[in-house]
């Protein structure tokens, strides 16, 4: 009996650990002009597990409002800033990935109605281990308090433990 209790406690514990494997911090969507052809969602994705994870898909609760949702990364290459579509976003075991302006981001492309400040965008993130996370990202107009920390365009968004940059994509 004791063993069963212990086992179930351990099981419960392992479940709760699993549930917190991936944690989303400070999600937000960039406010954009009403005629903007796109806007983007940003956040920090923390991987508390011992396994590398990949964000493979992002979707919204109102897909009809957008032409498509894509994973993107802005990179400095050949003296230019390039926004390159990504198959996935890597979140290294025990590491984190920061989605921020000028770096990794989830593109919300061709919105019929550009989400406004005060509203929020409900996102579902899907990872390569099959897990899903629902995120509610408030729309913000990224103002002065960020003190330029978001402007490091050529910084990779990753934590020091995160995956090294993939090779520049050949055109």
């Amino acid at each position: 009996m004791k063993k069963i209790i212990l086992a179930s406690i351990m099981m419960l514990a392992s479940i709760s650990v699993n549930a917190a494997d991936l944690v989303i911090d400070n999600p937000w969507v960039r406010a954009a002009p009403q005629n903007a052809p796109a806007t983007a969602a940003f956040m920090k994705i923390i991987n508390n597990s011992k396994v590398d994870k990949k964000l493979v898909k992002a979707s919204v609760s109102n897909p009809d409002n957008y032409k498509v949702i894509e994973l993107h990364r802005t990179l400095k290459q050949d003296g230019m800033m390039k926004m390159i579509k990504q198959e996935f976003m890597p979140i290294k075991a025990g590491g984190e990935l920061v989605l921020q302006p000028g770096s990794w981001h989830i593109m919300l492309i061709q919105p019929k109605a550009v989400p406004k400040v005060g509203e929020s965008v409900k996102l579902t993130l899907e990872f390569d281990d099959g897990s899903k996370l629902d995120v509610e990202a408030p729309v913000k107009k990224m103002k002065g308090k960020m003190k330029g920390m978001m402007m490091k365009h050529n910084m990779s968004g990753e934590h020091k433990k995160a995956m090294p940059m993939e090779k520049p994509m050949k055109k």
Partner: protein
Amino acid sequence: MKKIYIFSSLIVAVIISAVILMSKLPSLEVARFVSPAKDLPKFQLQQNDKPFNNQSLKNKWSIMFFGYARCPDVCPTELMFLNNISENIKIKMPDVYFVSVDASRDTPDMLNKFTAYFNKNFIGIGGKQTESDKLSSFMNVIYERVYHKDGKQVIIKKNATVPDELKDSYLINHSADIYLINPEGKLHAVFPLPHKLDSFISDITRVVNNYK
């Protein structure tokens, strides 16, 4: 004794010239001086329905950035950065000009709505691509039109016609340095990436305060 005399006058000379040099060119954290400042090539662009040309840049400091109104990430990030500068800078904020490198799509109205969203004083500049190219190539701005195919970027050649299905969606890879034009309308300093609020403000303040 003579040697000591020569040596000490040499040291004095070095110190004096260093002081003169430093007073002319204050040491900057991130920006690069264009020394001597360079005349811009003659250009004729549009600020809404008004002409925008070399004369428009005289008697005030100006900041120039090159981009396009449909820019999804880099231009909004940089314009918001420049808005942050305007809110934190202690000297008079230079006029900010956002020069389009996408003449075929950027109408004056789109450019104005776009720049005004970040700061109502920011000015969108459009006009003929050949005219904006004069400025951008002078500044060493590089750009290329691209679209995504099979997860990779494909470049649309400079003079190629853009297929209809890509007209709305092509992106532009472009440099994102910020250019400072002095009151004589000359290129005075360049702020390369990455742009950080504190060093940007300290550099621009030093440059402006040390002018003439």
